[in-house]
């Protein structure tokens, strides 16, 4: 049992195999059970086969959305045009737009957390409020948000803002507070003023960690966005998943879920690469 020891050192190939094992096991188990179910019932819709899922995804990605067909009447020519008029494209752009607006709105939260940490009066004014606010389950506010802001875009973005910004504010606050006091004293002795220290010393030092914090909260952003889209929307990835659920369209739901995971993974990867490029001095992964 030497492989279960703390000092065990798996080789490169072993590590590679181990890291992919659960993926392979999950996929194998799925298709095994799916094949069994289809042998018992060829019309089974709960666990579609790979062929059904590829067909479902192709239809979503290459066929025009229903509303597009009704409006244009004629079929769209050329695959780039077909992709742009497809259901998947429309849903992805709708969700991405909301997602990007929400992420952009997190940056004022970062600045607020920074100022709370650096200026004691600002901190005293806000900290207790956000500590309490952070404990409110944003989804429980959903009815209030829909009543207050209506069921259009604003309510979905507000849901994300209410759900994620207190966490980002408190996280930035803690990150700023964790910068050693010596750095602030040193900067004062070098002639820097309050705002130079806040932005040129503290903000620059915590920014890579703030980006990491936002990366870790991307899933929460998506969670609130999906909740909003599922309840009150006419487009978006979550709206489509909720709609397809009614028709048991698992052949499209599963590719949609994987598509969302892939998009989030790519955003996460992009932010990580950007973080490393912008902050070569930053050691954390």
């Amino acid at each position, binding site marked *: 049992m030497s492989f279960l020891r703390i000092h065990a050192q798996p080789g490169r190939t072993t590590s590679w195999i181990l890291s992919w094992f659960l993926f392979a096991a999950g996929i194998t188990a799925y298709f095994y059970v799916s094949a069994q179910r289809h042998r018992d019932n060829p019309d089974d819709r709960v666990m579609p086969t790979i062929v059904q899922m590829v067909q479902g995804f192709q239809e979503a990605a290459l066929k025009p959305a229903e509303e597009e067909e009704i409006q244009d009447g004629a079929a769209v020519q050329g695959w780039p045009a077909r992709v742009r008029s497809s259901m998947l494209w429309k849903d992805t752009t709708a969700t991405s737009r909301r997602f990007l607006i929400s992420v952009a709105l997190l940056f004022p939260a970062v600045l607020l957390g920074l100022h709370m940490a650096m200026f004691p009066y600002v901190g005293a004014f806000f900290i207790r409020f956000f500590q309490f606010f952070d404990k409110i389950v944003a989804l429980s506010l959903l009815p209030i948000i829909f009543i207050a802001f209506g069921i259009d875009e604003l309510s979905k973005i507000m849901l994300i803002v209410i759900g994620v910004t207190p966490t980002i504010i408190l996280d930035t606050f803690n990150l700023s507070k964790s910068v*050693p006091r*010596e*750095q602030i*004293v*040193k*900067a*004062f*002795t*070098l*002639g*820097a*003023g309050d705002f*130079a220290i806040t932005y*040129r*010393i503290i903000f*620059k*030092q915590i920014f890579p960690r703030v980006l990491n914090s936002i990366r870790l909260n991307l899933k929460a952003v998506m969670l609130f966005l999906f909740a909003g889209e599922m309840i009150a929307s006419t487009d978006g990835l979550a709206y489509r998943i909720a709609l397809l659920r009614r028709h048991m369209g698992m052949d499209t739901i599963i590719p949609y879920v994987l598509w969302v995971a892939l998009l989030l993974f790519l955003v996460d990867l992009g932010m990580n690469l950007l973080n490393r490029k912008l*902050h*070569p*001095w*930053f*050691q954390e992964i």
Partner: protein
Amino acid sequence: MGSIRVQHVSVEYPVEGRGMRRILNNIDLEIESGAFVSIVGQTGCGKSTLLRLILGEESPSAGQVLVDGKERQQPGPYCGYVPQKYSLFPDKTVIDNIIFGLEASSGSSSSLLNPARRKRMRTFREEGLRYLHHVGLHEADARKYPHQLSGGMQQRVAIAQALILKPPVLLMDEAFSALDPGTRSGMQRLIKKLWRESGTTIVFVTHNTREAVCLGTRVIALAKDASGERGSSVALDLGVPHLDFDSGEEDLRCLIREVESAAVPVPQDALPPPEAKPASVYN
């Protein structure tokens, strides 16, 4: 420029459930301009607290601290500061760390596209490189980040960063404590050389008696006041060592023994009267 006066200073902190705890008790010191003063004492005796008082980072519970005749409310460019750790900004290269003070003091936030600012930055960089060489580093180190440097190199950069503004006072808080003996010895010689050249008043806090004795033109021991307030420290001015790194080993050992015996708890009646200037143990 660079004189420090600590007048009857006491510092107390609230301790949860146990009232106030006095750290420093009626400290009275005068540090003349251009001196190199070592402050030595056991861990927890209040050496760093005394340094923070001089910096203006902390206010005394009683008494006052004057730097160049003024009471300082917060740290400023009148005092350079080299702590044991975290002295460099990790997000800036060596050269940017060194010239940070020049940039901050120039107070300009105009764009780098501004020709006047570009010219000024070029001057700052030239000055920064001069200081880099001065502390024994090479031009190739200028573009490195602090994490790419050894502990000794980091402290060299920190000293250059502090001295580039030519502060009248330089405060060093256990600045060489984390270094290996070889590097430490090199740094001690460097700081002594820089002090001779610059004439800056240096207050050097250390728990290493040998370092205190070899570096300081004056050694002040903070000793726990055995008969006074429990746990509080008093300052014993031990005068001028007149010794250097090249002094005989026997002389050094003798001096170190005397300083160490002064820095252990002393009864109240052994302390010099508050108004009288204490006699040097070396006279």
